[in-house]
């Protein structure tokens, strides 16, 4: 009888039959390759935070990437500038309009309570948020960072998830000065501590 593996590696010698392996091996496949990695560290290829906006410098108006083509209403930029430069708001919540053609401002707020803000995130619907996050940098006094949150809860409808995910880049590109990006699918990922942790990690 031919070794069954022949179809995959025709040149392979006769194979012995496959038997069970010890429990340990299950772990080894994944962890040993990580050890390799530690021994010969790969050069850092791309930094997550620097990815956006660098892909198509020659197409400022038309973005030939896979996106929904949804537009961004001017009020989004105005509200963002008011938050960033005039400190008029603590946060802005963005939504898509009913026809799914345009991103619009749904709410602006100067409420300082992070918990109140979390209460504004719908449990089963997607939104984007710009949040002016204030925190104590370890040993460095008070700092502000602008957070861009893509809120896509697990229980949202698939159509909404798809449209939001494929429109995100349009909004993101029109808002310059975002320091931290967060993708949130449940409340634990947008909890204060979790955001604080991300804000602290940046420069």
């Amino acid at each position, binding site marked *: 009888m031919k070794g069954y593996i022949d179809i*995959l590696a025709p040149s392979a010698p006769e194979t012995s039959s496959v038997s069970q392996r010890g429990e340990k091996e299950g772990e080894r496949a994944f962890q040993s390759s990580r050890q390799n990695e530690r021994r010969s560290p790969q050069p850092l290829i791309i930094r997550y935070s620097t990815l956006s906006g660098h892909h198509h410098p020659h197409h400022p108006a038309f973005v030939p990437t*896979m996106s929904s*083509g949804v537009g961004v209403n001017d009020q989004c930029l105005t509200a963002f500038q008011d938050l960033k430069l005039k400190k008029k708001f603590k946060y802005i919540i963005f939504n898509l309009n009913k026809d799914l053609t345009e991103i619009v401002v749904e709410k602006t707020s100067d409420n300082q309570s992070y918990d109140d803000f979390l209460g504004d995130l719908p449990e089963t619907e997607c939104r984007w948020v710009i949040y002016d996050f204030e925190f104590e940098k370890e040993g460095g006094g008070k700092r502000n960072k602008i957070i861009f949150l893509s809120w896509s809860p697990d229980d949202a409808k698939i159509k909404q998830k798809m*449209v939001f995910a494929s429109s995100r880049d349009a909004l993101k590109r029109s808002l310059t000065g975002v320091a931290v990006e967060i993708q949130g699918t449940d409340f634990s990922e947008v909890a204060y501590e979790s955001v604080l942790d991300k804000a602290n990690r940046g420069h």
Partner: protein
Amino acid sequence: MVNYGGDEVSALVIDIGASSVRAGYAGDDCPKAIIPTSYGYHPAPPDADVTMSDGAENIDAVNKSKFANIYIGQSGPSIWREGMEVGNPMVEGLIQDFNPIKPLIDHALEKTMRVNSSEHPILVTEPTWNTPANRERMAEIMFEEFNVPAFYIANTGVLNAFAAGKGSALVIDVGQSMASVTPVVDGFVLRKGLSYSPLPKLIHAHARHILISPTPHRRGIELLPHQLIANKTLVDAGAPPKFTIRQDRIAGTTESWRNWAETREIDEWVQSVAGVLDQGWNDAVAAQRTARQYEFPTGYNNYFGLERFQVGEQFFTHSPQLVASNPNLPKTIPQLITEALRACDPELRQVLMGNVVLTGGGTLFSGFADRLTAELTRSFPHTKIHAPGNPVERRYGGWLGGSILASLGTFHQLWISKEEWQEHGKPIVGQRCK
């Protein structure tokens, strides 16, 4: 609905995999046509006129040189025909033979959906490792042979990430022939991190090996398909089967058909019986699990215990003996993930592991998601796996993502129109569809 030339028409979405061609209306939540990608055919005899035989597709639609007749869909390869060969255009996730593509798509659109392709923009999906020549050829077929008013080709990795609501995700796709891990970052594929292997084929080969090899407890199993069996009698579990072969069909059965039919037998066994232990291999645990009964077309039936878990184990680990004797084993899922993450810095790894997306029929394998969670949380405690419970959403996530995207009015900016194709030709495909 897409506004095209003043008329509101639905776009169509086509997703071609090794197992099936999925086609349907953009905006629908599942494909209207799901037809097997494998097709039956009678090869064209050199320089001879051919007569249409029963169930054959319209010969005009068929590449004239290669096939005398081609059989697709329900009356495709599953119907035994004398001298019929079986082909499949896909190799390693890519279309290798374009000859049957036109008849396959024709069948899905015209026969099953009853639509006229020249009236609908068409979005086609592609895996990340598709070649520029291949996607251009697809555009050419769409514009020149199907006369579509507009075309777009979309990456399945990005479609799956988006359909899960994520701009950044680690997309794990296990299909019939390929397993792949694609890092998607801010809506872009991080090509450097793409890794893939024909792992599902090893699972399949392993299942075949287990079934046909005798063990101390049972004989080797004959994988005869029902089409070659005239009748069978009920037998006890483990008893030799009692059946009569259709001798009249043996001489007219081709090797490619026989292979295809056996593959189906194995696939059915795998889907109904095989599984993977959720916490890693353990003889005692495997032996404790309930054995499952399965009956083959010959009437042979038996209980499968430990063996059924050995099959699934191959997704995650290769035995040392196997590795020693086969230098080119397809990478396991953990190896593919490790390789993908190597292209990412630690911060990005955390983001990706918090956003793992499972897609493809192979991830429906019993116990797969639980085992993967166990493997990944050992190294990344914050692992979060998105695995849609709805089997259509899980298996056809790429199609579904394309369906939603192509249904958006605003997406019209991205379509390549027929005029643009005529003006710019092939280069427009790479420019528009990144």
